[in-house]
């Protein structure tokens, strides 16, 4: 090959590369949601394919997601056009870095969600995008052990414990599954379910006598829990493999079980305690970073994501429910039907005691969760004295609340200034 032909080959190669780079003018959707391959694929093929122009949907783990975003913000030059993440992800960000979305003419149906999305400022930091919750699910084989007189749709914690005990007696195996694994969402169970159900609070009542009772009950429940639960993070896997018969988890982390074997499992509301049936929503939002290269394109995509048809497509793809009023079609996947029913029963129950996501904690959200995880590990796994652990962890929690100045959120009674730990 002559030198000239080598050079011309190199030049043409470069030209092809440049042309390929120029052809990519997709809107970059940088998300922490719909990460599992199947969901990401469904987001592209079923949700974003209907949008007029091409969208590059890139789901990421929280670490790379935030690092990349921060890098673009610091560099002052971005490629990310639209952000999709959980309430907690946005709460940890600097409000100035997100564009005000109040003038888009779209918002969630729920005023609570819309005010959460302001993150304590006076503008829409993000738009509520989709919601989910945590529910219970059981293998139908476990139903025969249900205690007499117990209604699966109105269980109490005592009945749940009796049920798991009966299953253990009947099968010789501990069959309650709890997401206590590394990636499991155990802290949400304590914050949104156990504490509201026993203490009618989360922060104020953290170390109350009622909290001691709650942890005693949970210790009892743990004695009938599959000890391998400390490795469980997605209970759909254990439901399918039969390692767990009765489980608690995030709706989208149970979806696969219902979709693969819809006739084998039932979904039902979380149990109730002395102060009601505590439960907590999961809220994901859409935001635009101030470094978005094409603000108009970003806003158009956000508006598209909030259309009722898009929201229904998103529901089918991710098992996250719409936040705008929609007429749900009949052809929903089994998981959506099952979890939708359970959530409706849970929120419609006479003793419902809905909690809110922690708000106003800023980047201390992770530390807040840590308090609950540490408490769980010390009391349940370490077998330490409940009263002593709570009194000890209480000061950490109080420190977080004082440092952030976060006021109380439901079900805690409202506070002036930082929410006190009583």
């Amino acid at each position, binding site marked *: 090959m002559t030198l000239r032909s080598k050079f011309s080959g190199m030049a043409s190669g470069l030209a092809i590369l440049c042309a390929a780079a120029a052809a990519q003018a997709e809107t970059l959707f940088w998300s922490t949601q719909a*990460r*599992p391959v199947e969901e*990401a*694929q469904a987001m592209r093929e079923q949700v974003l394919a209907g949008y007029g122009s091409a969208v590059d949907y890139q789901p990421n*783990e929280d670490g*790379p997601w935030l690092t*990349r975003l921060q*890098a673009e913000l610091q560099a002052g030059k971005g490629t990310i056009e639209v952000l999709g993440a959980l309430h907690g992800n946005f709460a940890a960000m600097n409000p100035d870095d997100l564009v005000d979305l109040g003038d888009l003419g779209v918002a969630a149906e729920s005023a609570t969600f819309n005010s959460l999305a302001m993150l304590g400022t006076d503008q829409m930091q993000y738009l509520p995008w989709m919601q989910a919750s945590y529910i219970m699910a059981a293998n139908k084989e476990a139903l025969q052990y249900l205690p007499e007189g117990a209604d699966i749709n109105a269980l109490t914690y005592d009945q749940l414990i009796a049920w798991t005990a009966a299953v253990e007696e009947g099968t010789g195996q501990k069959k309650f599954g709890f997401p206590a694994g590394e*990636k499991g969402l155990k802290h949400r169970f304590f914050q949104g379910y156990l504490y509201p159900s026993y203490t009618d609070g989360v922060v104020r009542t953290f170390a109350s006598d009622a909290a001691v009772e709650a942890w005693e009950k949970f210790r009892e429940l743990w004695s009938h829990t599959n000890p391998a639960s400390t490795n469980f993070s997605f209970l759909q896997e254990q439901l399918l493999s039969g390692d767990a018969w009765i489980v608690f988890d995030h709706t989208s982390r149970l979806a696969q079980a219902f979709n*693969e074997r819809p006739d084998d499992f039932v979904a039902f509301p979380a149990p109730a305690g002395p102060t009601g049936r505590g439960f907590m929503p999961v809220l994901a939002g859409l935001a635009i970073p101030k470094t978005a290269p094409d603000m108009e394109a970003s806003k158009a995509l956000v508006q598209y994501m909030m259309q009722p048809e898009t929201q229904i497509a998103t529901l089918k793809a991710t098992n996250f429910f719409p936040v705008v009023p929609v007429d749900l079609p009949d052809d929903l996947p089994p998981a959506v039907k099952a979890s939708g029913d359970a959530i409706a029963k849970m929120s419609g129950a006479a003793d419902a005691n809905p909690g809110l996501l922690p708000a106003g904690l800023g980047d201390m959200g992770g530390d807040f969760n840590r308090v609950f995880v540490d408490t769980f590990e010390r009391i349940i796994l370490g077998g330490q004295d409940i009263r002593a652990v709570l009194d000890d962890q209480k000061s950490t929690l109080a420190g977080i609340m004082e440092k952030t100045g976060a006021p109380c959120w439901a079900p805690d009674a409202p506070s002036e200034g930082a929410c006190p730990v009583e």
Partner: protein
Amino acid sequence: MTATDVSSGAAQRRSGHYLYAASVALLCAWVLVPLYFLLINTLSSPDTVNSFPKPFIPEFDWGSLEFFAGYEGMLKALKNSVVVAVLTMIMSIAVGAPAGYALSRFEFRGKGLFRMLVLLTRAFPLPLLALPLAVMFIRTGLDDTAIGLALVHTTLAIPFAVLITFSLFSGIPIELEEAAWTLGCTRFTAFTKVVLPLILPGIAASAIFAFVISWNEVFAAAVLTIENRTLTAFLLAKLGEAPLHLKFAGGFILVVPALVFIFAVRKYLFAMWGIANR
């Protein structure tokens, strides 16, 4: 020597053979059994993957692999991975081998310190470095390019390249080079004519090491590339929460190219371990 002595010696030798065979079998199983299970589960239907006990013969259900065949961007990510890994290989040898030669042949002040410092690039976790790196890359335009990511991977691979080549050069007596000089070679030709041919398999081995390091790196790849994702960054983040059967299939897809590569260059790897030409 009595008869009993002979027979006990033979028995000892035989039991030694058994022990040797057993260790070999164990070591092979250590590597092969997980790979085999990966293969079986990749070629199984979701139901079988979730059941227990697992079958020992794959049922050749191509569903999981078909899913990835239709998954957008796989081939491009594979190409990016190869490009970045090859660039990393070239750059880490281009920088690492001369450094290794200098360490083994010359005395200079701060040599010990340099050998320590070269390891330091591995002392800081990438998540810590990724943010300032990404900011710099965005500003300089290196962001989202194969060469930019290869630079980062080269930094990670250099300590190994330096230390491996250092020990290789040290293994070649300086007398060989001196002899070449007396026979009319310059310092450079002595290197290319005498040292380089001896060391080539070792250099290839440390290049393979660089290749594997680049192939397996996730965090920097996930942060520093957007359009030009590598296969690991593209797949791994999404596999952690995928259903079990897709985890297996995705793992299989990640492992196979690396296996093929290692198999293709195994001769050089053996050379580094002193087992010549198998």
